[in-house]
């Protein structure tokens, strides 16, 4: 300590250190914590304002209240209906023409595989022929391993008792996915090459992905009629965004040097696309097609509301008849189909490459195999066309009935032995967790809540997030469902927090242990593909119709994706870093908290973002389990013609909430990663 420091005034509040030196760490600490501090500040002000103004200006409206906005939206819908019925609008007539085309091709396919047409008492090709064709396609496109997967899956559809429904769903999915991919890959390519196209399409994709399908069930059935065409179109809308986004991403990330090198040889743009970009982005595009396929399957149940053929119908039948088992068995069939399609698509994607690499060696054997398989298929087709035993799937063995009964007994057990135990959990969580937060959001005056959300958005995500938030909140306010929007927002946020906690805990476990990963992954796959309606009922049995049940369903739906993302992120941490940290003597806990989680930070942030959007997409189904609010408004709009406008308003509000949360988390994540090296330094 030099004397000069002693002589200085106590600049640092009594510290005797040089302010030049003491200032910078203090400033750094302040800078590091200013975000947390300002968030805390916002929260304190919010709570105080809530305590003073509680229950004033909350913009609550009655369940059947109408507003000019609702009426206006309702009139728009009526106008479309009018135009559709008198055939005056060329666009709507075009939709009708498309619908007729899809319906007739679809009808023809059904007559081949599932539906008898007079005078034939059975479809042209029964189960044996269908399985043979599927097996041949699987073998030719993806090899014998896939064949060994596809055949048992098809047999399972029959043995579970849903042969026709399963094949119908396959046809719908096939249709929707083929069209999605043709259109989607083209759009994705355009997006990758043009910033303007990308800027134009991205918000449309955002809306397509966040708009609850129930909102467009009705318009789709107006435009495309009742039946397969409308179902295919709905599925298409919901399923196309992943393949578009992922194709664009894949093409954009094709190695620059390769593009440059091949350009230098004088290739045309088309040659580049065909020979370089598409082949090199193939794996990514296949991943996109897979996602689209899964999204298409997840629409099966909702499309069944407008009579889409397929496995969604028995799921809904079970729901409406209170038969847990029926829904479950049909749901399992959907899961089996998802696994089958996912694995065969991936295998088919890799096969071409493997075959090329294997060179001539596999050739003759494969050719013989294909020839044998083709002959076998023809024989099977012949048998299937001509003999009843090979056409109608045999009633025995029947796995469906025992499984159904077992699940029903399980439901009964939940009801009698478990139900009263779970009340406490639901009550405790709702009273001490959910209700206070919801009260803060929904019972504060609207301007207080809006200001608080805006402040949080600005602190977390910066200026761009704040602008997006202002726009979204303004429109939400204008749509007139503010109070419901706040209830839904609360539920989403709380559920997302639960999802992230689950994702981090299980993701870390999976990322660190292969055994846990192998054990959990199939369960997660199943959680992702099982229609939510299926597990909604057991949760309902356990917890009754309320917000907790709906949130739980949302968590179950969103957790698998988030868990997988975190697990993959943990796994991707460089082994060199792990090695170095081990050498430094890190304990397991230190390894997780100081090395793996910080390095997997972007995965955790992505998991949060995806978790939010997945939770949001369950809002409508939550509305059918007692969550009320926007979800219920949407379903009401679909079910009651007097509430169409309100349903549309609710649907748009959900989209706005989705976009707002997405922008806040995305920009927040960007800021966090941009400043993280600074805070580490």
């Amino acid at each position: 300590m030099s004397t000069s420091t002693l002589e200085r005034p106590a600049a640092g509040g009594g510290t005797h250190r040089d302010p030049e030196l003491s200032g910078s760490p203090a400033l750094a600490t302040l800078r590091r914590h200013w975000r947390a501090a300002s968030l805390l500040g916002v929260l304190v002000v919010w709570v105080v304002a809530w305590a003073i103004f509680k229950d004033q200006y909350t913009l609550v409206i009655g369940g059947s209240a109408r507003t000019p906005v609702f009426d206006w939206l309702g009139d728009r819908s009526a106008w479309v209906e009018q135009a559709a019925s008198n055939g005056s609008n060329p666009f709507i007539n075009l939709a009708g023409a498309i619908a007729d085309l899809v319906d007739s091709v679809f009808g023809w396919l059904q007559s081949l595989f599932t539906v008898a047409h007079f005078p034939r008492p059975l479809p042209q090709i029964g189960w044996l022929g269908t399985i043979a064709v599927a097996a041949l396609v699987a073998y030719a496109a993806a090899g014998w391993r896939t064949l060994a997967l596809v055949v048992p899956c098809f047999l399972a559809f029959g043995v579970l008792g849903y042969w026709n429904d399963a094949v119908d769903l396959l046809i719908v999915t096939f249709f929707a996915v083929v069209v999605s991919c043709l259109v989607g890959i083209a759009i994705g390519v355009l997006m990758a090459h043009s910033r303007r196209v990308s800027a134009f399409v991205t918000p449309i994709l955002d809306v397509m992905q966040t708009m609850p399908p129930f909102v467009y069930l009705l318009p789709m059935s107006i435009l495309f009629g009742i039946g397969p065409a409308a179902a295919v179109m709905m599925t298409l809308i919901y399923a196309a965004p992943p393949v578009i986004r992922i194709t664009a991403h894949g093409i954009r990330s094709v190695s620059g040097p390769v593009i440059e090198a091949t350009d230098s040889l004088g290739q045309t743009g088309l040659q580049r696309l065909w020979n370089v970009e598409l082949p090199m982005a193939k794996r990514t595009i296949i991943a996109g097609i897979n996602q689209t396929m899964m999204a298409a399957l997840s629409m099966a149940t909702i499309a069944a509301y407008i009579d889409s053929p397929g496995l969604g119908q028995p799921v809904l039948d079970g729901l409406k008849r209170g038969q847990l088992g029926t829904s479950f068995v049909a749901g399992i069939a959907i899961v089996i189909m998802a696994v089958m399609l996912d694995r065969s698509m991936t295998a088919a994607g890799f096969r071409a490459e493997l075959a090329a690499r294997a060179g001539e060696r596999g050739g003759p054997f494969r050719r013989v195999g294909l020839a044998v398989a083709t002959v076998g298929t023809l024989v099977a087709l012949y048998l299937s066309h001509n003999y009843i035993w090979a056409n109608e799937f045999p009633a025995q063995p029947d796995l469906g009935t025992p499984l159904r009964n077992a699940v029903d007994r399980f439901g009964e057990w939940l009801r009698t032995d478990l139900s009263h135990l779970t009340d406490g959990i639901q009550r405790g969580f709702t009273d001490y967790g959910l209700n206070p937060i919801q009260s803060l959001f929904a019972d504060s005056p609207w301007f207080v809540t809006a200001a608080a959300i805006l402040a949080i958005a600005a602190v977390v995500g910066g200026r761009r997030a704040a602008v997006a938030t202002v726009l979204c909140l303004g429109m939400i306010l204008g749509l007139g469902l503010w109070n419901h929007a706040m209830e839904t927002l609360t539920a989403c946020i709380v559920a997302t927090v639960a999802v992230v906690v689950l994702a981090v805990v299980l993701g870390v476990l999976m990322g660190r242990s292969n055994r846990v990963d192998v054990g959990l992954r199939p369960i997660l796959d199943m959680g992702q593909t099982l229609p939510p309606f299926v597990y909604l009922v057991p949760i309902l049995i356990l917890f009754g119709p309320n917000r907790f049940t709906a949130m739980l369903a949302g968590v179950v739906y969103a957790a698998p994706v988030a868990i997988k993302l975190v697990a993959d992120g943990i796994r991707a941490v460089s082994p060199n870093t792990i090695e170095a940290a081990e050498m430094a003597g890190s304990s397991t806990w230190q390894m997780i908290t100081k090395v793996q989680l910080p390095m997997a930070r972007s995965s955790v942030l992505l998991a949060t973002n995806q978790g939010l959007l997945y939770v949001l997409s369950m809002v409508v189904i939550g509305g059918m389990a007692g969550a009320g609010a926007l979800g219920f408004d949407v379903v009401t709009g679909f079910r009651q013609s007097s509430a169409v406008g309100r349903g549309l308003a609710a649907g748009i509000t959900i989209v706005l909430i989705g976009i707002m949360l997405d922008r806040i988390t995305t920009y927040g994540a960007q800021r966090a990663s941009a400043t993280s090296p600074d805070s580490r330094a």
Partner: protein
Amino acid sequence: MTIRTTDTQSPDIPGAPDAAAGSQPALKVEGLWKIFGAKADKIIGSGDAELSRTDLQAKTGCVAAVKDISFEVQPGEVFVIMGLSGSGKSTLVRLLNRLIEPTDGSVVINGEEITSVSSGKLRDMRRRHMAMVFQHFGLLPHRKVIDNVAYGLEVRGESKAERRRRAQEMVDLVGLSGYENSFPDQLSGGMQQRVGLARALAVDPQVLFFDEPFSALDPLIRRDMQDEIVRLHHEVGKTMVFITHDLQEAIKLGDRILIMRDGEMVQCGTAAEIVAHPADDYVRDFVSEVPKGHVLTLRYVMQPVRPSDSLEGPAMDPDTVVWKAARAALASAHPVRVVENGELIGIVDDEAILRVVVAEEEPGTETGE
């Protein structure tokens, strides 16, 4: 400083652009500019163009990657462009085949003004008259070696049989026979670059561009590949423009070398000339590590004949490398006579030789008084 004074005394340099001005050059570059950033085209001609790179960026936000470069390359010549990373050399070579659009200036290859041709014509020129080898190879991972080599022929529409034949020839030429059906990821880096080389050669271009082709390779393989280039140049005699950051490589391969810094040309000349007369401290720093005995020729170490000098020594050509002349010179008791076209133009004594071969580390001594 001493440097300046020697600079002014520098003898005429053979092979300099103006020296070859009679025949048509294979490549002619004039006043070539590349400025990255918004409204970059407005900068040229304004006073801003004279600013240094950092000042320009501070003022306009634009980055001048290549500033007013001119040079010519003669048919069959290997022309090396050298500079550290960020010097603009990779941008420069991409301006030559318009992988990057120049901001200003002209590039003439084979009589065609590359900078102004239509995109169709440009494509055609890329397909027939020029080719490039890249640092990161740029091979198509989903294609076999032979199909990678044939890609240039494929895009210009050659028949399958013809391009197979030609590609096989090239594969053999670069010493990859037997690997035709391998995939790029099954080959070592050096072999992958041979594929890149074969692909470039397959279209039989007049001009070959190399963008740091060997910097991603191990040192031993790098040397092999350099030898390979020397051999190929000997066999096929293509005009080559070669980018590198490695002076050794530049000296080994280049007939002439252009040194760049911050987008500007610092010096252009033969290796010996650059080593003998570095244009500034930047270049001097560059060449300080070069074993000068291997680069300098007698022309750069000879002294004017003084009446007192013995004229009994062996006669040698002025372009003989010092290192090669050393043994004979030291063995003789008399200084070497440097004879060009039968005329005695200077003498080299033992001390001059030893100064280059032994004491080369001391800066400035090799040409100092």
